[in-house]
C-alpha cells in the first residue's frame, strides 16, 4: 500500500498576537508547528503501516522551513517526503492549494500508485476544512471526512471501511479505493519519536519540488490562481454596549438579583 499524508506548517495559534496599532498579525517570534490535525492523520497512516505494511509519503506545500514538518513526520515513521516550494505558489487560497497538491499527487502516482491520501480535518490557521474535499474532487477519489478510524481494508474488492464523526452519532461507511480521508483529533493519540529516530530525521534529506518538477498550469497557482482575495484584516471590533455594572461589595445581593430579573423580564425573554 502507498499512503500519502498532507501536512501543513502553521503558526501556533495560541501564540499569535495582533499589532494593536496596525491591526496586522505579528508573526515574528511565533513558533511554527505541524498542523495538529495532520499529525492525527499521519498517526492513522502509521497504524495502517504497522498492521498491513505500507509506504508513507508526506507532502507539504510551504516555504523552505516547512521541511521541519516533513522531518518531524519522518521521525515518527513516515518513509519519504516532498516539499512543494516555489514563489509561484505563494498566496494560494484553498482552490489553488488543492490544485497544486493534487498535481503533485498525480506526479507521485506515476511511479508509485496511491491507495489513500490523508489530510487533517482542517488547518488551524484558517480553519477552512476545504483543501481535503478539494483534492478528492480534483483527483476523482472517494471522500471520507471527519474520520475516527479505519475498521478494515479489503484489498481484493479495493474498498475500505471507516468510521466518521457526525452530529448526533457515528457513521460507518464503505469507500472504494483510492480514497481521501480527513482525520479528526479524537481518532488517536499521536506517537512520539525515539531519540535516535529524531536525530536521524534531522539529518535526512527532504526532496524539494519547485514548479518545474511536476505538471502545472501556472495561472491556476498562487495569488493569480486564487479566486478569493483578502480585502482587509482588522482586530475584532469592540461591542457597542455600555454595560451596567453592579458590585456585591456596594449593593445588596437581593437588590442586584431583582434588578437583573426585572431587566430580563422587561426584555420579554421569559
Amino acid at each position: 500500500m502507498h499512503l500519502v499524508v498532507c501536512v501543513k506548517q502553521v503558526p501556533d495559534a495560541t501564540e499569535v498576537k495582533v499589532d494593536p496599532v496596525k491591526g496586522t498579525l505579528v508573526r515574528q517570534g511565533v513558533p511554527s508547528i505541524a498542523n495538529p490535525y495532520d499529525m492525527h492523520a499521519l498517526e492513522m497512516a502509521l497504524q495502517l503501516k504497522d498492521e498491513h505494511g505500507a509506504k508513507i509519503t508526506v507532502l507539504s506545500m510551504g516555504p523552505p522551513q516547512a521541511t521541519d514538518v516533513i522531518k518531524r513526520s519522518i521521525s515518527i515513521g513516515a518513509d519519504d517526503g516532498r516539499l512543494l516550494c516555489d514563489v509561484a505558489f505563494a498566496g494560494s487560497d484553498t482552490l489553488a492549494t488543492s490544485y497544486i497538491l493534487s498535481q503533485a499527487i498525480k506526479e507521485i502516482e506515476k511511479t508509485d500508485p496511491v491507495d489513500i491520501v490523508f489530510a487533517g480535518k482542517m488547518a488551524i490557521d484558517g480553519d477552512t476544512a476545504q483543501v481535503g474535499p478539494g483534492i478528492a474532487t480534483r483527483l476523482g477519489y472517494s471522500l471520507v471526512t471527519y474520520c475516527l478510524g479505519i475498521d478494515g481494508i479489503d484489498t481484493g474488492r479495493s474498498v475500505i471501511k471507516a468510521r466518521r464523526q457526525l452530529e448526533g452519532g457515528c457513521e460507518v461507511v464503505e469507500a472504494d479505493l483510492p480514497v481521501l480521508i480527513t482525520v479528526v483529533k479524537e481518532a488517536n493519540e499521536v506517537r512520539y519519536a525515539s531519540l535516535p529516530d529524531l536525530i536521524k530525521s534531522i539529518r535526512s534529506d527532504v526532496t524539494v519540488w519547485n514548479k518545474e518538477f511536476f505538471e502545472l498550469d501556472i495561472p491556476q497557482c498562487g495569488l493569480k490562481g486564487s479566486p478569493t482575495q483578502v480585502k482587509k484584516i482588522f482586530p475584532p471590533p469592540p461591542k457597542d454596549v455600555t454595560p451596567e455594572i453592579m458590585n456585591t461589595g456596594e449593593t445588596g445581593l437581593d437588590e442586584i438579583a431583582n434588578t437583573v430579573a426585572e431587566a430580563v423580564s422587561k426584555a420579554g425573554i421569559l
Partner: protein
Amino acid sequence: MKKSVWIFIEQTDGKFNDVSWELLGKGRELATALDAELCGVLLGHKVIEMAEEPVYYGADKVFVIDDPLLEYYRTQPYAHGLVALVKEYKPEVFLMGATYLGRDLSGAVATHLKTGLTADCTVLNIDEETKLLHQTRPAFGGNIMATIYCASARPQMATVRPRVMSMPDRDASRKGQIIEAKLGLKETDISTRRVEFVCDPSTSFRIEDAQVIVAGGRGIGDGANFKLLKELADVLGGVVGASRAAVDAGWLDWSHQVGQTGHTVRPRLYISAGISGAIQHQVGMEGSDMIIAINKDPDASIFKIADYGIVGDALEIVPALTEAFRKMKGESG
C-alpha cells in the same frame, strides 16, 4: 435571467437544519441589495412534500432534486446535483451552513465550479460600489478578522455557522415557485456507501438550540458546583454551557463548550459565571441578545461585552438569581 442568491437547504432524515432558515434571512438582505431573487436548493429523498417550507422563510423559488440516491448525505451525488443546477441557473451568491455536511459539500462544489469559497463567515454584506459579496470571518483563533471577496469567479460561495445569523419569522402564507430537477446518476457512479449509522445521544445534545444558557467557567471552582448553574438554567427553561477551561477540567463534556473550538450560540439570554471572557470564548456567544456576566474580577474582559455585569462571587450570586427568577415567575403565575 434575473440575478439570484442561493441558499442550500440542509435536511437529514426529513428534518431541516435551522441554519438554512438563518441563511434565508440573511439571503433576503443580500438579494435586496443585489436586486436579485432568493432561491432555496433542497436535495434528498421524499423531500418534494417538504419543498414549500423554504418559501415560508423567504425563498422566492425552491429547486428540488428528489432521488433515492440522496436518501442520506454523500458528497458525490449531492455535489453532482448542485453543480448541475448552478451551471444551468448561474447564481451570483451561494451560501451553505458550516455544519459537518455543509463543510464537506461546499469544498467539493466550489472545486468543481473552480470558484472561491470562504468558510465560517460571521458578517456578509454587499459592497455598495462593486456589488461584490464581502465575507468577513475570524482567523487565527479569533485573534483577527479578515474581509474576503471573490472578484470574478461565480458563484461567490460562503459557509456560515449555525446561530451566527438571526432567525427570520416563518410566514406560511407566502407563495413561491417549486422547480424540480433530475439527478441523473446511478448507484454504480458513486464510490461510497453507508454501512450503518450509530446514534450517540451524548452528541445529540445541541446547545445551539437553547434560548437560555447559563455557562460556567474555571471560576466555578468545582464540577459539583455546576448544580447551582443547573438550578438557575432550570428555572429559566435553559441549559448549562461551559468555557473550554471547564470542559478541559472534565466538569462538562464538549457538547456544552461555547467558543471558537466549541459551539457558536445565539440565545436570547446568556448568563456567564466565573468565565474571564477570552476572545475565543467571546466569538462563540457575543451574538446573544442579552448577556449577563458574573465575575469577581471587575477587570474581566467578559464585562466589556455584557449588558449587565455583576462583580462578586458566582457561588453567592447564582443562587440569588435563581431565587429572584423563581419569585418573579411565581408572582406572574
